[in-house]
């Protein structure tokens, strides 16, 4: 299993020079009376692998869902690649963005879900080619060739013609990873991608992700409870609590010598 070296070659704006790719600026998200994100500021540099850790309900998944524009922030702004994600400039003032603008910015972002969310009505190959053909305008042959390479990379080169329900959870998740990568996003969001898997299937999925992390330039934003995996692939770990980042740093630092008492408590509970 080796990653496709061309994976990020022809991206529109391959900024892998460590410049800022994602910026959250005073982002507030409430669900009912519950403030999940409280004036959150943080940024992710291009090409970095960032893991979000913290107790459940601390807003980690909400960050990924905001970036994927599955939900909208109540206050504050998010920038991706220098462009506002959910706002646009009109006559010098910042207004909520139209669907067209959101679609353009969102094209830089891919997401893998906890529950895989493959399309059960499509075979594996078409799950992967559907969006490149209809959204990026690739020819069917080109999209299929790319899909086969990606399936090869995730170790499922022989399952093109299977339906998702004929695959194990781990295989489905690897297809979902291939599907997200087929859009050649600059950012890959990983939302607890192994939480729904049987324990013996977790390693296969994590191996694929490790491979991608080590051999491509893709920026990864990862919510996980797999601390060993986080330690392995992350450049930076952000510890969340109550809608804020309470501590951040390289994994060696956070995992072995956390500065914050909450982080210590959390890690001793999960490690």
């Amino acid at each position, binding site marked *: 299993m080796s990653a496709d070296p061309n994976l990020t070659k022809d991206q529109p704006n391959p900024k892998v020079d460590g410049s800022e790719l994602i910026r959250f600026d005073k982002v507030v998200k409430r669900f009912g009376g519950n403030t999940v994100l409280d004036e959150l500021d943080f940024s992710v540099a291009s090409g970095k692998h960032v893991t979000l850790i913290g107790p459940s309900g601390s807003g980690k998944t909400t960050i990924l869902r905001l970036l*994927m*524009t*599955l939900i909208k922030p109540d206050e504050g702004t998010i920038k991706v690649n220098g462009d506002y994600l959910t706002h646009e400039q009109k006559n010098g003032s910042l207004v909520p963005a139209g669907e067209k603008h959101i*679609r353009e910015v*969102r*094209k830089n*972002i*891919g*997401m893998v*879900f906890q*529950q895989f*969310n*493959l*399309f*059960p*009505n*499509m075979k594996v190959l078409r799950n992967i080619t*559907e*969006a490149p053909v*209809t*959204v990026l305008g690739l020819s069917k042959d080109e999209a299929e060739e790319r899909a086969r390479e990606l399936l090869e990379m995730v170790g499922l080169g022989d399952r093109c013609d299977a339906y998702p*329900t004929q695959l194990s959870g781990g295989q489905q998740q690897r297809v979902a990873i291939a*599907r*997200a990568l087929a*859009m050649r996003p600059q950012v890959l969001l990983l939302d607890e991608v192994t939480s729904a898997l049987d324990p013996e299937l977790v390693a296969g999925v994590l191996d694929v992700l490790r491979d991608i992390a080590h051999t491509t330039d893709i920026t990864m934003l990862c919510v996980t409870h797999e601390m060993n995996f986080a330690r392995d692939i992350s450049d930076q770990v952000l510890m969340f609590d109550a809608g804020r980042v309470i501590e951040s740093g390289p994994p060696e630092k956070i995992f072995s010598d956390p500065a914050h008492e909450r982080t210590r408590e959390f890690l001793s509970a999960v490690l």
Partner: protein
Amino acid sequence: MITTASSSWDWSAVADFMPHFWDGVVETLKILVLGSLISFSVGLVWALAFRAPTRFVRWPVGVVTEFIRNTPLLVQLFFLYFVLPEWGIQFSALTTGIVAIGLHYSTYTAQVYRAGIEAVPTGQWEAARALSLPYRRTWTAVILPQAIRRVIPALGNYVIAMLKDTPLLAGIGVLELLQRSRLEAAQTFQYTEALTVVGIAFIVIAYPSSLLLRALERRLVR
């Protein structure tokens, strides 16, 4: 002493009825097939309109479909056949009947589609959005194929229900099975034979259909 004319079964009456019986079968199946097609397609339009972004669509569609669903089909048939011509809109009894039964059943199939669409997990919408699939494409390639697959058995049940409602079209003079048998019997006074044959014909069509549906259901619902 009173003796009934048709106290014994007369096979020759059955034989005499056969040519008209087959005409009636053809007419009934025509109503069933075209009525189903109308109910399947119009019902889908209703179901999509239920989810329209603006209440100026949702609300009127809700009122219209509830109205159609909660008034008797026979009343609707009479209205379309006897009242509309007064406004200069006139169709043959058969056309009127097919449209009425199709429209009536579309309000049922709309509810079936609605349930099927709602049963598609939110994750499917989210995955489509994460891949930037356009809204229309999300519907046609992701949501509807899954929703429709789920509702085929339920739609089939309505086809069988519709079959059993086709005799209502006799009320406006459509020459379907029941009307054929009534005309036959009116000439010969042998009601038993004609009506029995028609009753059996409905069973012969409906029962295998429902068996077929059950088989289909086992295949589709996985």
